[in-house]
């Protein structure tokens, strides 16, 4: 590697403690650690494509059980009802709670779907010279909808409220809620491990930070 020792690519600021340090030659398969706080030192997050891809793929796989299986099973004197997320939204619509229904639809069904598909798209097409604009656009949309995903906690609040009726009815979490939690966690990890800098890397930079 014929890098300029004082050039921009040999100096790295630690993401954790901010110490600027020189990174010497890093052999393939090795990782640089900060001299002061022992955190990872990176120009670009390692394996960002593969990481984002595997996390979003896992999220995509679990997206189906999370929507097909019931999130709660309520039992009341032998009458039992299982509710999937979609059925819950339908019930909210029937109860004329249009605002809440739209909110849950967007945050629990549409936004995870968009995030998963978007991240899969970004991580697979990043090498392609075309569609650079589209990738930037998708990335920005993901950034915008990301905080709204926290609203999924709202669903948990409903579950807790239902379990509180324990004396009258018994409520069990269904398979859907476990898959759903996994989907939320995996999409979160997928966005975290996506290093947006690779979106705009020039071919030389790509080569350098491989």
């Amino acid at each position, binding site marked *: 590697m014929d890098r300029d020792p004082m050039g921009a690519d040999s100096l790295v600021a630690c993401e954790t403690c901010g110490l600027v340090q020189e990174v010497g030659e890093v052999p393939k398969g090795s*990782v640089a650690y900060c001299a*002061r706080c022992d955190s990872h030192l990176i120009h670009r997050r390692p394996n960002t494509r593969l990481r984002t891809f*595997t996390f979003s793929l896992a999220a995509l796989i679990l997206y189906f059980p999370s929507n097909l299986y019931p999130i709660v099973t309520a039992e009341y*004197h032998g009458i*039992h*009802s299982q509710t999937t997320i979609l059925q819950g939204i339908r019930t909210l619509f029937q109860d004329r709670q249009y605002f809440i229904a739209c909110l849950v639809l967007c945050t629990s069904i549409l936004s995870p779907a968009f995030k998963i598909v978007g991240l899969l798209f970004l991580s697979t097409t990043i090498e392609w010279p075309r569609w650079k604009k589209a990738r930037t656009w998708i990335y920005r949309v993901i950034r915008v909808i990301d905080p709204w995903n926290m609203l999924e906690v709202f669903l948990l609040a409903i579950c807790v409220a239902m379990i509180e009726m324990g004396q009258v009815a018994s409520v069990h979490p269904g398979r859907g809620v476990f898959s759903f939690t996994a989907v939320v966690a*995996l999409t979160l990890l997928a966005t975290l491990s996506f290093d947006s800098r690779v979106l705009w890397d020039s071919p030389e930079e790509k080569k350098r930070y491989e």
Partner: protein
Amino acid sequence: MNRLVAERSPPRAVIKKGRPAWLLWLIPAGAAALCLWFLYRDYIATGPLITIYFQNVNGLQEGNTQVQFRGCQIGEVKTLTLAPDLRQVKVTTRLAGFAKNLARTGSLFWIVRPELKVGTISGLQTIVSGEYINVQPGDGPPTNVFTGVEQQPLDKEPGALSIIVRGNALNSVQEKSTVYYRSLAVGEVTGYQLASDGRAVLIRARVRKEYAPLVRENSIFWNAGGLDLHVGLFKGAEISAISAQSLVSGGIEFATPTAPGAAATNGAVFELNEKAKDEWKNWEPSIPLHLEKQAPATETLPNSEPELK
């Protein structure tokens, strides 16, 4: 100045070995394994989809009504639709995987509703929980289409002795009336009909397997239902009834002479007497019985039903 210069030359980072990248593939692999496990559990837990035709499905709910067997939930009603001829209601039901042996020819399905009859109150829990479908297992070849029965069928009792008692009138005898021997319940009435010439009533009854040897060809049957009222000059009035239950739901009692005849065979016909003679009650035939440790308290013996294979 020197210090600043010294600080400008940055420290060297530590270089260590990283984790191999293929480990990341374990995450989607784990997700796929979880999905496959869900599918496998579904496959195991899902039994056949069966169709039951009922005359009336009052109280049944789509997606809510349970199918139970021995109090255990074995299925759920999925859809209720009218048969094309409008004479029946088609009930599609998803059975659980462990209950697939109940989908056999001969299985009888009926709807349990709260019932208040002379002598019995049943299905009270359905007032709160709603109606449910109960099943009596059959042992024929597997099938998916059934015709529901209107009432709970009599429990099956293999080995029970079926007899016919011929009487002048039915009086208070009805289906499920008890058959007594020495005031002990040993069987029950399974049905009745008018004789083909209309001159008598034929009452079908069965005596449980372990008591079957008590019935001999020379046994004598009489109507044990209702009140027996004797008014005598010297002993005053005498009222007798075998039990409060037989008072309301009727019953048949029999006795076998001290010198018992040959054992009765299935389908044997006996005459039903209106009243018992005192001498019948004093007969003391000695008949060996193969009784189980404890005489059962009710007519429905849980161990008398066929084993499911």
